[in-house]
């Protein structure tokens, strides 16, 4: 297993190097630059020239890339052109919000999606099945910003049950340890702060969970249907093994393999989904920060973020591979 991890990490080096070159070239070929982004309609010709000179944007791209790589080797991602703060600080400050949101969304998607998909397959053709299939179709189709708007209108404005935006209520004087507000409240015994954070998580997590939930329901349903038709299931049932055992040990366990792969892939995509969800709910995580960075042509932030995401994807896929071996002993991770 250790060899697998080391090999994966070594494979990462040429991948990231190639990605960084491509990305750097692509970003610097985009129309516009930080000067116009920073000053908008107030940017004069002279302002633009001055900012470009100061930022070193007049140098050839390979010189700029060399400078960036030199800093990266010193573990320095540079500073955000837009906020003027170190990229690493911006990431670490915002990352807990995004992870908290992604975990909550994934929790909803898995806890609701797998049972729903399973029972939809078991009761194929019933109202439950039809409801799950059509509901998942809607979940995939509905845009996050629209879903966010509807959720806020119903649960925040009309019912007044949940807060409409942010991660924490104004005036909550909570102790911050890890930056994960729910966890911090539990660690410090400030349970009201934890509950406040959960309330703030509810709507954005629901909105973000809509697509993964729909995908998991459909994948689980299809996978369970396939396994239910296998000979070994019929054999097990005809041998008189208890139905609970057949379904738990033979059906669900085998059906979960593609679901686990999907969950792994979805976990990565949740980060990109968070870009929109966080903006819609003013959630203050890394996603909304990246959206603003794209608008501002904030090259250091975008470079750092893409590398960060690449690392994350590799880590998640590694975890998925490891999870395979736990679910299916036939799979050996070496």
């Amino acid at each position: 297993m250790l060899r697998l991890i080391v090999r994966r990490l070594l494979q990462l080096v040429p991948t990231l190097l190639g990605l960084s070159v491509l990305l750097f070239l692509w970003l610097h070929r985009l129309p516009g630059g930080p000067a116009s982004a920073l000053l908008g309609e107030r940017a004069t010709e002279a302002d633009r020239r001055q900012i470009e000179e100061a930022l070193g944007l007049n140098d050839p791209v390979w010189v700029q890339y060399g400078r960036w790589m030199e800093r990266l080797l010193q573990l320095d991602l540079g500073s955000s052109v837009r906020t003027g703060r170190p990229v690493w600080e911006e990431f670490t400050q915002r990352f807990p919000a995004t992870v908290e949101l992604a975990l909550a969304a994934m929790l909803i998607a898995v806890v609701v999606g797998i049972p729903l998909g399973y029972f939809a397959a078991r009761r194929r053709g019933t109202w439950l099945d039809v409801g799950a299939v059509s509901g998942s179709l809607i979940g995939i189709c509905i845009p996050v910003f629209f879903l966010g708007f509807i959720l806020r209108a119903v649960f925040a404005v009309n019912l007044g049950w949940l807060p409409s935006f942010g991660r924490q209520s104004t005036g909550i004087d909570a102790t911050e340890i890890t930056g994960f507000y729910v966890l911090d409240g539990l660690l410090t015994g400030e349970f009201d702060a934890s509950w406040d954070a959960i309330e703030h998580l509810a709507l954005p997590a629901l909105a973000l969970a809509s697509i993964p939930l729909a995908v998991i329901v459909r994948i689980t349903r299809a996978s369970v249907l396939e396994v239910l038709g296998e000979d070994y299931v019929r054999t097990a049932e005809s041998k008189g093994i208890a139905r609970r055992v057949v379904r738990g040990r033979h059906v669900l366990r085998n059906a979960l393999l593609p679901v686990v792969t999907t969950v792994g892939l979805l976990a990565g995509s949740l980060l990109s989904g968070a870009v929109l969800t966080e903006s819609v709910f003013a959630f203050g995580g890394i996603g909304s920060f990246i959206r603003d960075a794209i608008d501002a042509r904030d090259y250091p932030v975008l470079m750092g973020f893409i590398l960060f995401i690449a690392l994350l994807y590799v880590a998640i896929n590694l975890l998925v591979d490891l999870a395979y071996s736990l679910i299916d002993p036939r799979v050996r991770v070496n």
Partner: protein
Amino acid sequence: MRTARPKAAARAFAAVIAIGLIAAGCASDRDDDDGSGDGTGPFVFGAAGDPAALDPSLGSDGETFRVTRQVFETLIEHEPGGTEMVPGLAEEWSSNEAGTEWSFTLRDGVTFHDGDELTGEVVCQNFERWYNWSGTYQNTTLSYYWQSVFGGFAENESEETPPPNYVGCTAPDELTAVIEVAEPSANYPGGFSLQSFALQSPTAIEAMAADDPSGEGENITFPNYSQEAGVVSGTGPFQISEWNRSNGEITLERFDDYWGDAAGVEELVFRTIPEEDARRQALQAGDIDGYDLVAPADVETLVADGFQVPVRGVFNLLYLGITQENNPALEQLEVRQAIAHALDRENIVNTQLPEGGVVATQFVPDTIDGYSDDVTTYEHDPELAQQLLADAGAEDLTIDFCYPTEVTRPYMPAPADIYELLKADLEAVGITVNPVALKWNPDYTETTRDGGCGVYLLGWTGDFNDAYNFLGTWFADYSREWGFENQELFDMMSAASTEPDVATRVSLYQGLNEYIMDYLPGVPISSSPPSIAFSPDVNPPTVSPLTQENFAEVTFK
């Protein structure tokens, strides 16, 4: 056997629903501990973006100044709800005849948040700090307004930096400061009212000197003191308590030793909510007490629901820019006149702009000194437009019409809708329009600046009441954006900008406005107030055409 299964499935499904409902049920009991609307808690305002810095001298955007304005004060301020300059930290001000020496008599008994006293010497310390900025501070990102109003620095480090117009500052006595500039300029005295020139305490200045920004190739870092509460110190009715970045929240608390009337609320909180819909729903849900940049379409609903949407005066301008070099036909005056006559600007104002919007007759709003009642006007007259096109031999005119997407500006709430109406007007007189939709930042601003559009939508919000703040932005010299050379106009602009006598300058501006509307480099469309909304439970501040609301005026009902 099988009949038991649906029950199991139903039980599981019901359990999930139950958990959700319990959570929601508990949530419904949540305390309204954000204090909004209960008369005791903080006043919470929804801002569209984070401030760039807590030191206003490093800022150039409205979201930064909205926060810093509550904390820092300038020598000259604007009257509440108006554009006239009134005493700020200076009770009086005057200049010599040449307009090169500006004397300020300071208020007595003003203290900074850290306990320092305001004196003439402190004023000079502030100006000398800005003038002596070096390194990264000289980047426009950090010193935009200093360079716009006072030029360069004691030692310019880039050829692109303008020469300094600031000469020096002296304090002949404890409550007097005299600022000397090399050349008179239309930027004075209005420039002294800009938030970028708000004063900080000597203790803060000393601490800030020890913490420079760093910058090297794509790597400009704001100084630490501007990113957290603790160092910066002003004289305003509020002082900064905390900036919680991860929660997008800046908390200000009342400054009890404020020289003027004490703030009406103990705590003022700015929460960043980028999406307009989210800001509106946050107000409706009672999560915030007010927000800015209300979509015109939402005003009616909000008012009907009992929310307060006070109307600001206008201090901006939306125009249809014309780049003459982009299309030879546009160099002909008749063609530009035809375009002006083709546009139904009244329709834009009536259908696209909030209450208080007006058709613009010239390139300044009617609230500014120098506005002329005698400019040539261009009524909506499609037949005349067609005739003018025929006279110019441009019946088959085709133009690229650029408009921005994914943006609203204070002067342009719905660019795509405005574009559609104007396009229909132009097509109605036989002009073929090629639509060019561009993302606002930076594609659109750069393309228009580079002269890449035949016609385009753009605008300006004024900083202070001087017409040069508008006209000088566009017509002081040749620019690719307009694509024309008109030395007579440039000379008139130069004469007006260096005229020290205010009355004479205003008269020159009136002449300029008349000249410009005869030459017609573009078509002014409208001036409109950006809407701001408040909860029914608060007494809102006096709204300002300059968007300079003083939140110390806020009280809960």
